[in-house]
């Protein structure tokens, strides 16, 4: 089974709130190591060695320059704020149950 990809896009250098978000995500996925892969994006982006390409959602987040952003399987689920841990967990376990972020692109 393919792992759920959770990408976190935070400011560079990260603020204490950005670090808090990364901590929340690590906590939310601590017992899901075999099901979830977490990638934290900061800096100017060299791809981590084990990541083959930038996901659609991450491209979208950087195009809109939203920090922070949480992207699950290529869909931006949260942005501009830190989600509640329960919402975060829900989005990771069942991405379709949490709507994608609407920032008014239409």
């Amino acid at each position, binding site marked *: 089974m393919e792992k759920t990809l959770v990408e976190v896009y935070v*400011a*560079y*250098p990260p*603020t204490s*709130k950005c670090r808090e978000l990364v901590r929340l995500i690590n906590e939310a996925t601590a017992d899901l190591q075999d099901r979830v892969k977490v990638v934290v994006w900061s*800096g*100017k*982006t060299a791809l981590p060695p084990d990541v083959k390409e930038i996901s659609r959602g991450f491209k979208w987040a*950087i*195009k*809109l*320059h*939203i*920090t*922070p952003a949480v992207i699950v399987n290529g869909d931006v689920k949260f*942005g*501009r*704020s830190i989600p509640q841990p329960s919402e975060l967990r829900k989005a990771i376990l069942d991405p379709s149950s949490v709507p994608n972020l609407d*920032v*008014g*692109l*239409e």
Partner: protein
Amino acid sequence: MKWRLLTHATYDPKLNLATEEAILRSRHENLCPDTLWIWQNRRSVVLGRFCDIKSEVNVEACMRNGVEIVRRTSGGGAVYHDLGNLNFSMITKPQSAGIPNSVLAIYKWSSEAVLGTLQNLGVGAEFKKPNSLLVNGKKVSGLAQYWFYDALLLHGTLMVDVDVRIMYEVLSNLKNEVVNISLATHKHLTIDEVRQALATSFSKILGTKFQSGNLVHNEFVKAKELYDVKYSRDDWNL
């Protein structure tokens, strides 16, 4: 809260980008007011956050022409700045400032300020989605936005009298034809005239009267920190 028209002025692109981000971070923390800053960089290529320097910039031409290479925190392509170009940065919290909150609406709304400026200077221009302003089909201004939590940085360029010869030399992947306002109006406009027209136009669309002011202490501190750990460093810029 009153809007501040920032009077801070240096031509150092690295320091200016550090200052812009420092204001944004400070605004998020409610440590400074909503701000409009109109500023200039000396000769520089400003790369988008994820730009590939090799495909976008002729580094040798930059060195030959004394053009610095810096990287901004927002995305997008590489642009050329010199003292013939005006940059404007609006930093605010849209929800409390009564400004549209969605990406495309912000571009459309802020383009009105630039169109108004150009109109007042006698130049007919049009907005091209999502974020460009054109004069006779040629780009005169581009807009970008960057969100830091609930705070927005909307910034753009306005070509007044840019040295286009150097621009074409240093940028290897220019996507649009460009035009200076000075060429479009066939008259010599000073940077200060255009700066004033921009401020007036933003004041109009914001429905506010600006209060001139300089950076506050925490912005200076943040700018210095961001300069030291990010914008002055080759591992960020190159």
